[in-house]
C-alpha cells in the first residue's frame, strides 16, 4: 500500500480545544473556501430501562489506519479536497463527549460537505472499531452500527 498511514486514534474523548486548534491551523491554507466538520458524540441511549453512561472503544488499530488511509486517498481525489483529517477515540468515552471528528476542506462548500458525509459513512462501515456500551448499573453490551 502506498498511502501515507496516519494515526487516527486519540486516547480518551476529543476535546473542544483540540477541535478548535485544528480549525485554527487551517487559516494559513488560503485556497480553502469551505470546511465541513462531523462530530460524533456518545449518546445516552436507554435500553431495557438502563441508561448508557459511556462507550468503551477498541480497535484493530493497524488495520483501521491502513483502511482509513485508502478511504482518505480515494475521497481526497474524488472531491478534490485541500485536506482531510479524521480522529477517533479509544477507551472509555462518557455520554456527551466527542468520540469522532471528521474534518474536510475544499475550495467550495459542496465538495467539503459531500466528502465529509461519505467519509463518515465509510469509516463507520469499514473500520475495525468496536464500541461496548456501559450502562448505569455497570452492565455492558456491544454496540451495533445502524445505517444513518
Amino acid at each position: 500500500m502506498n498511502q501515507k498511514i496516519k494515526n487516527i486514534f486519540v486516547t480518551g474523548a476529543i476535546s473542544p480545544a483540540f477541535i478548535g486548534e485544528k480549525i485554527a491551523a487551517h487559516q494559513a491554507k488560503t485556497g480553502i473556501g469551505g470546511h465541513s466538520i462531523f462530530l460524533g458524540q456518545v449518546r445516552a441511549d436507554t435500553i431495557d430501562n438502563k441508561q448508557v453512561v459511556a462507550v468503551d472503544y477498541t480497535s484493530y488499530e493497524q488495520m483501521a489506519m491502513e483502511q482509513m488511509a485508502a478511504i482518505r486517498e480515494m475521497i481526497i481525489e474524488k472531491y478534490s479536497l485541500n485536506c482531510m483529517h479524521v480522529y477517533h477515540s479509544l477507551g472509555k468515552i462518557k455520554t456527551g463527549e466527542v468520540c469522532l471528528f471528521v474534518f474536510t476542506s475544499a475550495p467550495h462548500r459542496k465538495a467539503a460537505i459531500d466528502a465529509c458525509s461519505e467519509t463518515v459513512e465509510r469509516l463507520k462501515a469499514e473500520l475495525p472499531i468496536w464500541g461496548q456500551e456501559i450502562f448505569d448499573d455497570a452492565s455492558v453490551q456491544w454496540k451495533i452500527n445502524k445505517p444513518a
Partner: protein
Amino acid sequence: MAVKIQLYGQLKEITRASELFTEATDTEGLIREMATRYPVLENLAYLIAVDRNIVQANTPIKAGQELALLPPYSGG
C-alpha cells in the same frame, strides 16, 4: 504448524482470549474449527482478515501471516 489468530470485540469475550492458535490450513477450516470450539459463534457473523485485508473466499492460511477475527464493527 500453529498460526496465531488475533481476536477483537465480543470475540475476545466469547473466547476469553485476545489470541488463539489454529492448525487450520485455510479460512473455511478455521471457521469450522471456531464453530466446534465455540458453538455460540454460529449466531455471530464475523469477518476474517489476512494480513489486515478482509478475505471473503476460502483462503489458504500460511505461517507468518497476520490473522484476525473481526465481529461486526461499531465505530464512530
